[in-house]
């Protein structure tokens, strides 16, 4: 059975006047040209105390387009900020494909991504200059452009067809290795518009950007829907300042991963006041499983938490919960222009929002599809009212409560480097208090430590701690156990993977 929905299903949950204003555009460029005259003098982005209107944003993008040219694949390595927004808009409305790299990538990975994803030039944030070291050494001919630069000349927008490439987003993907999912203009616009369905108070809102723009949830649901709806986007530069920023900016909509929504709730309780501010109406929550507890508790503070489901490969949004009819266990109603199918319990997807491919990875792309359907690896069901439920994951990839995707194989490879490690396993575990953490167990090769001075286990743990500290924060493990025995093995001698969180 194939499930589809029509946008009309969302009409009753949306303000009638606003519902009529939700228009579909074939490309980001077409949308940008349509909204500029409408919102010209409104604030589009507020960053580091400076307000930038929509027309100022287009002016700055127009002076950036000559630097990046057209028809190019433009790497963007920037912290969240006005510069990153400007570079992204300049690229995607200038006939280029934006390759948005996570700002925390180490120098070697920046180089690796640029090569694998076919980046023609790299826009960088001067604060991240150290991360360019490998690129400068190993690819000296790759043009590097500071995000702060501007041309004296201006280039206008370049029209784009719906099927033209728009962005390449970094993802752990289905099989564990990091990949770049290519999303077309049509896919990005689907995600952008879908963010408008199911609640009241869609246009002219105040959004806060806490999530990284290198994540589809930050780029599409947060930035793109904010621009599309003529809303103001306040950029939170450091997560620890989130609540001070909220007090100043008073957002009406927050896009959060469950871990942050959970943290905001417990901090509000600890300090006896609503730290999210009295103007906040909605928390759009996703990128990891949302606890029904959050959906039930937030309304007590006058805030609706709307849980949704999406993937990088689906341009973020597959389904979302409409306001007022809440099923706390559900991830909501599927958005229009997609088809859903459940095969052996697994959710398969097809639709305008789906990626074109994993760039430079034909085998991975082919492996992700069956008969043109993208296999999500998530176990799902749909109830009689058309609400979707995600019941588990059949893939190895670990999604932590903060929404980060961790590929065990990738992290294990690092811990396997020392000679005295025979094997390792990175897995998701639950602590006694119910917290989900990333844990590491290793099987040592004691003979490699023969003759070493000191307690072998201490030497191992200290070396592993050093490796752990060198990993990007989201890949770091919270517990290290040195085993006395080998792991349980499958008949083909592979490690039998732990399954502690299913």
């Amino acid at each position, binding site marked *: 059975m194939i499930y589809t929905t029509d946008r009309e299903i969302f009409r009753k949950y949306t303000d009638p006047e606003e519902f009529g204003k939700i228009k579909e555009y074939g490309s980001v460029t077409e949308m940008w040209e349509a909204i500029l005259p409408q919102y010209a003098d409104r604030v589009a982005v507020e960053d580091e105390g400076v307000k930038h209107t929509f027309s100022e944003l287009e002016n700055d993008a127009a002076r950036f387009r000559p630097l990046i040219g057209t028809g190019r694949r433009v790497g963007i390595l920037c912290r969240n900020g006005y510069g990153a927004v400007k570079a992204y808009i300049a690229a995607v409305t200038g006939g280029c494909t934006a390759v948005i790299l996570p700002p925390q990538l180490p120098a070697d990975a920046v180089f690796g991504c640029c090569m694998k994803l076919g980046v023609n030039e790299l826009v960088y944030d001067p604060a991240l200059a150290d991360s360019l070291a490998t690129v400068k050494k190993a690819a000296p001919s790759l043009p590097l452009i500071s995000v702060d630069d501007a041309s004296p000349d201006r280039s206008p927008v370049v029209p784009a067809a719906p099927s033209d490439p728009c962005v390449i987003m970094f993802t752990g993907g289905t099989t564990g290795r990091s990949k770049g999912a290519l999303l077309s203009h049509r896919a990005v616009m689907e995600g952008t518009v879908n963010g408008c369905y199911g609640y009241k108070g869609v246009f002219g809102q105040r959004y806060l950007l806490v999530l990284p723009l290198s994540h589809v949830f930050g780029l599409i649901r947060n930035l793109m829907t904010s621009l599309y709806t003529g809303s103001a986007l306040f950029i939170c530069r450091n997560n620890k300042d989130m609540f001070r920023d909220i007090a100043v900016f008073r957002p009406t909509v927050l896009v959060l991963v469950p871990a942050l929504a959970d943290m905001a709730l417990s901090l509000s309780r*600890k300090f006896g006041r609503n730290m999210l501010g009295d103007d906040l109406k909605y928390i759009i929550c996703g990128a990891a499983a949302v606890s029904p507890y959050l959906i039930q508790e937030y309304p007590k503070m006058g805030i609706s938490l709307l849980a949704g489901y999406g993937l990088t490969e689906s341009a973020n949004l597959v389904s979302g919960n409409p306001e007022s009819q809440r099923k706390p266990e559900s991830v909501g109603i599927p958005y229009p222009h997609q088809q859903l199918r459940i095969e052996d319990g697994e959710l398969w997807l097809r639709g305008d929002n789906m990626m074109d491919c994993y760039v430079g990875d034909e085998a991975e792309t082919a492996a992700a599809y069956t008969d043109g359907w993208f296999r999500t690896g998530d176990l799902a069901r749909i109830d009689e009212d058309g609400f979707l439920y995600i019941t588990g994951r059949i893939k190895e990839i670990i999604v932590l409560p903060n929404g980060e995707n961790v590929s065990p194989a990738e992290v294990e490879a690092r811990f396997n480097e020392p000679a005295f490690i025979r094997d390792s396993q990175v897995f998701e575990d639950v*602590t*006694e208090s119910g917290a989900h953490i990333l844990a590491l167990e290793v099987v040592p090769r004691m003979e490699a430590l023969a003759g070493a001075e000191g307690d072998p286990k201490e030497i191992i743990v200290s070396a592993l701690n050093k490796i752990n500290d060198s990993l990007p924060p*989201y890949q770091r493990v919270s517990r290290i156990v040195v085993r006395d025995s080998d792991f349980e093995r499958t008949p083909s001698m592979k490690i039998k993977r732990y399954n502690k969180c299913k």
Partner: protein
Amino acid sequence: MNRQQITDRLLDILRSAADDESVADRCTEDSLLQTDLGLSSVNMLYTVIAIEETFGIIFDDVTVLSFRTFGDVVDYVERKLS
């Protein structure tokens, strides 16, 4: 505020950050925040925000993950308050 008073308040924050009553009993100044106490990056963020609220201080150019041990945090707060 002396070091012991700072420590007591920090342990209270740790308990709520980790959502784990036992964490304070296991904690010494040498405890590694991530590996020994099992604090995730979100727990660390909670801790930093709660410290700022509790002590009325603002961390300067400190990233959430730049502390290794519990003692590092006590030192930092003590320095900020003096």
